[in-house]
């Protein structure tokens, strides 16, 4: 899997030694095969060890991808809805303010557009992965 020869030694209790000809490092790992967490040199990666193309934790889904919608990553409460159906919005405009863990989570427009549907209401507890607003 590695480009250059590298030895992995299981040191027990989630600790692994990664060594090549030049040096060795200490790594930590935990989690199931479909989402294995690895800590190495101060970075954390979540790796699916079943598939052929593991992805980096930090490199996934960017917010300004046109094909993506914004949804709460966790149960959150809708603090306020700042748009109405049919309203024109500019990129960066605040659409919905969520609240979770004492923090406000602003959901902003990823691009210019017009509000097609609002799928949530103030005070509502929303679940992850469910669309809050759709633009057209």
């Amino acid at each position: 899997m590695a480009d250059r020869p590298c030895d992995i030694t299981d040191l027990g209790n989630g600790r692994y030694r990664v060594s090549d000809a030049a040096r060795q490092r200490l790594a930590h790992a935990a989690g199931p095969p479909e989402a294995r967490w690895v800590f190495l040199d101060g970075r954390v990666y979540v790796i699916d060890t079943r598939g052929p193309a593991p992805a980096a934790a930090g490199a996934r889904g960017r917010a300004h991808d046109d094909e993506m919608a914004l949804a709460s990553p966790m149960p959150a409460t809708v603090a306020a809805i700042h748009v109405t159906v049919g309203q024109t919005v500019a990129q960066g405009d605040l659409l919905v303010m969520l609240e979770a863990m004492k923090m406000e989570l602003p959901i902003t427009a990823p691009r210019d557009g017009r509000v097609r549907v609002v799928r949530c209401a103030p005070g509502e507890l929303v679940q992850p992965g469910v669309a809050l607003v759709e633009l057209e």
Partner: protein
Amino acid sequence: MFRRLLIANRGEIAVRIIRACRELGIESVAVYSDADARAPHVALADRALRIGPPPPLQSYLAVEAVLGAARESGADAVHPGYGFLAENARFAAACVEAGLVFVGPPAAVIARLGSKIAARQVAAEAGIPVVPGAIPADQRDETIALAARRVGFPVLIKPAEGGGGIGMKAVHDEATLGAATAQARREATAAFGDGTLYVERLIERPRHVELQVLVDHDGRVVHLFERECSLQRRHQKIVEESPSTALTPRLRARMGEAAVALARAPAYRNAGTVEFLLDGAGDDARFYFLEMNTRLQVEHPVTEQVTGIDIVQAQIAIAAGEPLPWSQDEITQRGHAIEVRVYAEDPAHNDLPQAGPLLLYREPTLPGVRIDSGVVEGGDIPVQYDPLIAKLVAWADTREAARRRALAALRTCPILGVKTNIPFLIALLEHPRVVAGAIDTGLVNEERRALLDRSTGDPPPEAVAVAMAASDAPQTRPAPHGAVDPWVRLRGWRG
């Protein structure tokens, strides 16, 4: 001294206070919501009482439940920590009514300093500079323009209500004032239901520098020097240090005098923090009163590390009526301390808080590194509360040595199961402006893209090899549901 103290808080600060109690020979009483039944603060206290279900309003913010626990446990004092009820004047008053000593200033002082406008008045009366500003007599564009001219450009147009930076507009000259005013009014109305605007002098590239004070019950005041807290994301501090690279001895003395004067003004008692905006650096820098926090700060450890004074134990001693044991002359700064706040959050996605299981959690033990935390491996970061996992505080004889030590600590602090800001903090501590100490409150925001580029990326082959080699989670806990991706690809989305 007290016999039994109730800690009306959770997480790392509850653990911190329990430990102070143990060293002072005071019995500690923890309170917990159902989400925290197995949390370390519950396990470490001499007694622990359930106060309600997970939502804060029904547990850690429920005044009656907390007072009930104090009554039931026979506590004679209450320490509120920070957050939750710490700056709630009604709670402080209710404690006193219930015959409990509240570890903090009197309720009236909390109430007075909790109001931004009243606090500004206290500062002005004490002769402490405040940022020049004005609430225009009416909200017509011309009146606002008049106020802006009087205050002097550049100005900040900001909503009179609310916070979090929403609706705030920097205006550098009169030409752009009209458009900015209109936009600020629109955003303020949308966010807070109130479009009232306020005009303030814009301090460009300010630093956030705060002074820690302690006041005993005879009104004796000392300050414990400054904390530099300019590294903030979304108006929340993530790295703090002491001393500040911006302060000269003369400026430090002037700010110390201002902080002490401010603490004297409202007959302050116990620990408090006077926050200033600092414009410039060195002898000629100007500072402006921002607010006074009437409680323990998250970042108090950096002061403890450079002064050698245990602020939590001092708070408890003051509350018990003991006089301050040191004069101002006896308090000195030694070396340099840097605190980094490790949060369960995703810097790549607007610092979205994360929750989940701590599949693996190992704290580094390095000479000169102090860790304040309230979690253990096998535990959880619950969804309901502040996602602070731990504070890593590095002390060394120089700033550069402390910075390297903080980096060494971050690089040997594996936390698996929830995303954290550790890679982001590493990139931040390695940023040339942070290395040079040339920081201000805008830095993190301005450099966010560069910091993210340095802290994210595809896993190197070695990490993949480790993932493949790891046959099982080291925990006996059930495996997690998988990493939560905050940005979910929705089928049926039409562009």
